[in-house]
């Protein structure tokens, strides 16, 4: 009898082996209150040292919107500007901010928590998920600000607004998927954390946060100033049709804003759902595959 057989007969398992995917996911689900508590505690402790305290949760996105509003609303000309520009901008910035911050923070979730990872045994997946949850909890008050702002600027409240609940739930799941993939890659290749701010900035400028891709690059009908009309860059518009963050932003804006420009695009709903399922399923699998690797000190 070899030692391996002997170990098996005594009911021992190999150290460093990972549980099956199903067991693993069950274990993560059992830790859901860990995920939530960690997110909540982190937000509290982050704000404890500021004299304005929890008020920062609201103040930060407001200041952000103010700066971007000033820069893109006043300084930069009206080229590619859709109707309801200020509302368009606010929704874009708030939603994207959640995504970008989750991405950079979640990518570091394993590498920055090595003390915790090396002290206690628990499925490591809870760390990146807690990072996204933390950003999502911070995102919720900004949604409230967004809605108040929309009402204040005279946008009608419709039942369409309820659609943001499934939209943001989907977006949360999608972001979790992206972050799980990134968190594992950052363990193998730490330099990725340094690249992330640039990657998110690239997405910020190309996703259509402060200009409309359709307005800017779509075909223009003939007008007095431009009797020929322009064909635009249809391939670019087609490309962004398949860009998930653009899809999420578009359906969120369509749910909240009125007018023909913001008509709901059913295709985007389908694409966004497919992206979410695909990215989340792949992310969970991909992260789980390296579970035994995360505690390594080097």
């Amino acid at each position, binding site marked *: 009898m070899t030692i391996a057989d002997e170990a098996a007969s005594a009911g021992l398992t190999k150290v460093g082996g990972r549980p099956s995917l199903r067991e693993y996911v069950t274990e993560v689900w059992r830790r859901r209150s860990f995920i939530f508590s960690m997110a909540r505690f*982190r937000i509290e402790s982050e704000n404890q040292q500021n004299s304005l305290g929890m008020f920062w949760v609201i103040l930060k996105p407001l200041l952000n919107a103010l700066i971007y509003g000033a820069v893109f609303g006043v300084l930069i000309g009206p080229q590619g500007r859709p109707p309801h520009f200020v509302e368009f901008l606010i929704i874009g910035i708030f939603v994207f901010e959640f995504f970008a911050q989750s991405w950079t923070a979640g990518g570091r979730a394993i590498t920055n928590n090595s003390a915790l990872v090396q002290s206690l045994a628990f499925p490591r997946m809870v760390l990146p998920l807690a990072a996204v949850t933390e950003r999502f909890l911070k995102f919720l008050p900004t949604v409230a600000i967004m809605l108040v702002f929309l009402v204040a600027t005279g946008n009608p409240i419709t039942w369409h607004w309820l659609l943001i609940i499934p939209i943001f739930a989907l977006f949360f799941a999608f972001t979790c998927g992206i972050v799980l993939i990134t968190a594992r890659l950052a363990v193998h290749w730490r330099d990725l954390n340094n690249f992330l701010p640039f990657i998110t900035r690239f997405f910020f400028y190309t996703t259509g946060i402060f200009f409309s891709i359709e307005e800017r690059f779509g075909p223009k009908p003939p007008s007095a100033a431009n009797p020929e009309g322009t064909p635009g860059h249809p391939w670019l518009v087609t490309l962004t049709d398949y860009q998930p963050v653009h899809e999420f932003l578009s359906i969120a804006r369509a749910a909240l804003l009125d007018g023909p420009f913001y008509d709901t695009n059913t295709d985007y709903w389908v694409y966004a759902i497919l992206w979410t399922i695909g990215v989340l399923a792949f992310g969970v699998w991909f992260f789980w595959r390296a579970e035994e690797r995360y505690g390594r000190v080097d």
Partner: protein
Amino acid sequence: MSTDPTEQSRPIDDLDDLGMAHPPVHVPKGTRAPVVIVDDVHVEYNVFATGKRPSAADRKSLRLKGRGKQMRTVHALKGVSFTAYQNDSIGVIGTNGSGKSTLMRAIAGLTPTSSGAIYSESRPSLLGVGAALLKDLSGERNIILGGLAMGFTMDEIEARYDDVVAFAGLEKFIDLPMRAYSSGMTARLKFAIASMATHEILIVDEALAVGDRTFRKRSEARIREIRDDAGTVFLVSHSMQSIKDTCSRVIWLDQGTLLMDGEPDEVIAAYHAAQDK
């Protein structure tokens, strides 16, 4: 029981190359089941002289060219084998750099083995000196999160909370962020959190060294308690008194090999004799 003479002071046999000729896993008479089996474990680190571990791609190219100038292979463990049984509390001794912590990290599943395998009943938790759990959060929050991470429910943590705080002796400081704690207080809290869970394999790597006398006595008592609860404890320490007080068996590592495995008094005497040489 640990006094079973057949189990003590086993000579360390050379491994035969044939798969069937491994030294038999020694199951003493009685019911004590093996909890951890360490089977011919080797651990090698490839380190750059700067201390940075090369990425997989670097390693490959360097191996093709022969060993690079700036890269060195540290053979931290060279074929260690032993079996730990239920209720064992095993002291691990050896000079600095003898491979104690590497062995403990390998048993905890944190450092993968280069060859050989480790089998265990449940995932061992390693308790070492080092950074706080989440240093920005208060001790209270760390207890809650630590408990949740180990899979306790909120109610279970609430039931244990007062015990943990009392054990760590941090009643006055529990609402302060852990970055304000001294290293001794941090170690106490970590030990208290980790010992919330029962029926597990606990590895204590010099974590008691920073604690004061009172705490050391208390944690040694807890280690014995865990052991009596059918748990298994590994204790790495340079304090022979701690080891004598808590351990039923001692392993002596030297330069990555297991020199001796047996009764505490005997192994410690041999270790001291070698040191004094």
